[in-house]
């Protein structure tokens, strides 16, 4: 059995560090790094344990079993997301020492960044580990509030406006989600996923509840019609923060959505759900790419690229693993979706960190400002290129593996429309990423000088991008972990 501490540590450590950071701002960086380090180690051990034992790990906090108590559980999926979150979190915080580190005197941004970031990470870990809808709600709220605060960190006018709009969307989303939870509780008298799955039956109120929760979560994941808040928020936020915002925050609400439809109510997903989410995802891919193509600022391109790539995730519902029996081997779209979530997180974090480093060096984030920066920052540019390769889904990156799994599922189940969308997404990604790459690699005009940037701001994104590519190369390992504790629906597919 997995030692209970492994499940508690990823949540407790960051929260503890957040409190310490508030109390001793001078030691904030040390506390933060050590806390996330602990979380990373715990998640690593957890992943190894899960892989080795082949079963998830569960812990009823305080000995109170559900439905009364709160249970923490880690199956393959949550272990994988946990590990990704901790890795990206550590990377981001290492880079954050630059702009937000202790500089002799206490500044507003320097002081408030660390607790917010740590709360955000704690919230993420809480969501990934919990099995209870109300627990999800609490995690979701903590996540949203800290994210909104991070967006408004710069204090500039458009940052605050963006934060406010983000808050509005987030509030609507969480309210609808809460309403759905309330109805579910009214229906089944419990909010624990396992118990609901046991006694779920398809009837009106359950569907209404699930619909409400889906709408709420879609708003938080910035699915196409509800994405308007994301670009301005992620551009307003400081680059380091937007790395976490883009890479992790939407994945948490998507994670809950997956739990709702694949684990809690496997039988309920009617054609309505799959087609709606699928079409909105497909439109998100195309729309996000077109917008990314038209942007002039580097951060806006990356933000709209997030909108597009998130569309991929929602293709999991229509594809939903495809009837794996038909495929000669059981590669499911579900696994593809989850691998895409992780590899996109890593690549997007790397890309935003590079963008941050380049903006610091060039003093502006327009494509013309960063032209020819490869001469000065070869490593960062190479990291950016590697991340771009993952986003385009070119082999040997993790993105390719995800795309490949989704494509096989699409072709096997005859739904080649979604396959075409996946491919088009890859091509469009190549289209809108070509301009930034071309201007980065362009010959810099001699009189343009870039200020030097600490080496770590280049090495961390490179490391993250390499992990994203590694995901594609050594993909047997993540593939097996994701299968642990995979629900039937994920395998057989929502009918």
């Amino acid at each position, binding site marked *: 059995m997995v030692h209970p501490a492994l499940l508690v540590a990823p949540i407790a450590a960051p929260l503890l560090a957040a409190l310490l950071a508030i109390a001793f701002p001078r030691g904030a960086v040390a506390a933060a790094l050590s806390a996330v380090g602990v979380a990373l180690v715990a998640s690593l051990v957890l992943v190894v344990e899960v892989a080795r034992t082949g079963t998830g790990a569960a812990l009823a906090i305080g000995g109170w079993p559900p*439905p*009364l108590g709160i249970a923490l559980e880690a199956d393959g999926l949550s272990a994988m997301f946990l590990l990704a979150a901790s890795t990206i979190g550590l990377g981001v915080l290492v880079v954050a020492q630059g702009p937000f580190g202790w500089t002799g005197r206490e*500044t*507003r*941004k320097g002081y408030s960044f660390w607790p917010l970031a740590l709360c955000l990470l704690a919230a993420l870990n809480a969501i990934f580990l919990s099995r209870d809808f*109300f627990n999800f*709600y*609490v995690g979701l*709220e903590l996540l949203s*509030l800290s994210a*909104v*605060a991070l967006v*408004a960190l710069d*204090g*500039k*006018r458009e940052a*605050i*406006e963006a*934060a*406010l709009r983000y*808050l*509005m969307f987030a*509030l*609507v989303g*969480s*309210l609808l989600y*809460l*309403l759905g939870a*309330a*109805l579910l*509780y*009214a229906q089944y*008298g419990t909010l624990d996923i396992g118990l609901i799955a046991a006694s779920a039956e398809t009837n009106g109120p359950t569907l209404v509840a699930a619909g409400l929760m889906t709408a709420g979560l879609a708003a938080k994941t910035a699915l196409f019609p509800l994405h308007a808040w994301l670009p301005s928020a992620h551009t307003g936020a400081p680059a380091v923060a937007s790395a976490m915002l883009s890479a992790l925050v939407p994945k948490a609400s998507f994670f809950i959505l997956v739990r709702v439809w694949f684990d809690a109510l496997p039988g309920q997903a009617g054609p309505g759900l799959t087609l709606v989410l699928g079409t909105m995802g497909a439109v998100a891919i195309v729309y996000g790419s077109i917008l990314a193509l038209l942007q002039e600022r580097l951060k806006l391109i990356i933000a709209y690229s997030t909108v597009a790539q998130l569309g991929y995730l929602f293709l999991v519902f229509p594809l939903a693993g495809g009837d794996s029996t038909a495929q000669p081997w059981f590669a499911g779209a579900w696994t593809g979706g989850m691998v895409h979530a992780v590899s996109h997180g890593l690549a997007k974090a790397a890309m935003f960190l590079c963008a941050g480093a380049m903006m610091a060096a060039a003093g502006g984030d327009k494509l013309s400002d960063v032209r020819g920066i490869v001469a000065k920052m070869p490593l960062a540019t190479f990291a950016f290129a590697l991340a771009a390769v993952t986003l385009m889904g070119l082999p040997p990156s993790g993105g390719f593996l995800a795309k490949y799994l989704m494509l096989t599922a699409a072709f096997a189940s005859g739904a080649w429309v979604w396959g075409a969308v996946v491919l088009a997404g890859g091509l469009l990604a190549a289209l809108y990423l070509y301009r930034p790459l071309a201007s980065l690699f362009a010959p810099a005009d001699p009189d343009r000088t870039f200020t030097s940037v600490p080496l770590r701001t280049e090495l961390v994104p490179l490391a993250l991008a390499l992990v994203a590519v590694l995901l594609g190369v050594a993909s047997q390992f993540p593939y097996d972990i994701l299968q642990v504790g995979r629900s039937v629906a994920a395998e057989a597919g929502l009918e």
Partner: protein
Amino acid sequence: MGGDPIIASWLVYGCCGAVLVGLGLFGFMRPTTTLRRVLAFNIVGSGIFLLFGATGYRVPSTGADPVPQALIITGIVVALAATALAVALMLALARVSAGRDEDA
């Protein structure tokens, strides 16, 4: 002690909750200032908590079911935090747009 009341009290609370949620959502979506939206947000919140309470009562025999009450308390705390953040942001925005920039 009166017999069964004409309609069960939990139903009354449930309907009130539903009405509050509807009003709040409508208020939220109308093109209004942010402040009004935050207020609408609180209305919807209380509506939902009322609903939660109503569901709790429905379970007969051993008195009210404790779980919804716990959830309601947490919900209220979270709603309060969200409102506080919203108001703080609005103040910051007002201050910024009035010309004085936040200290870095």
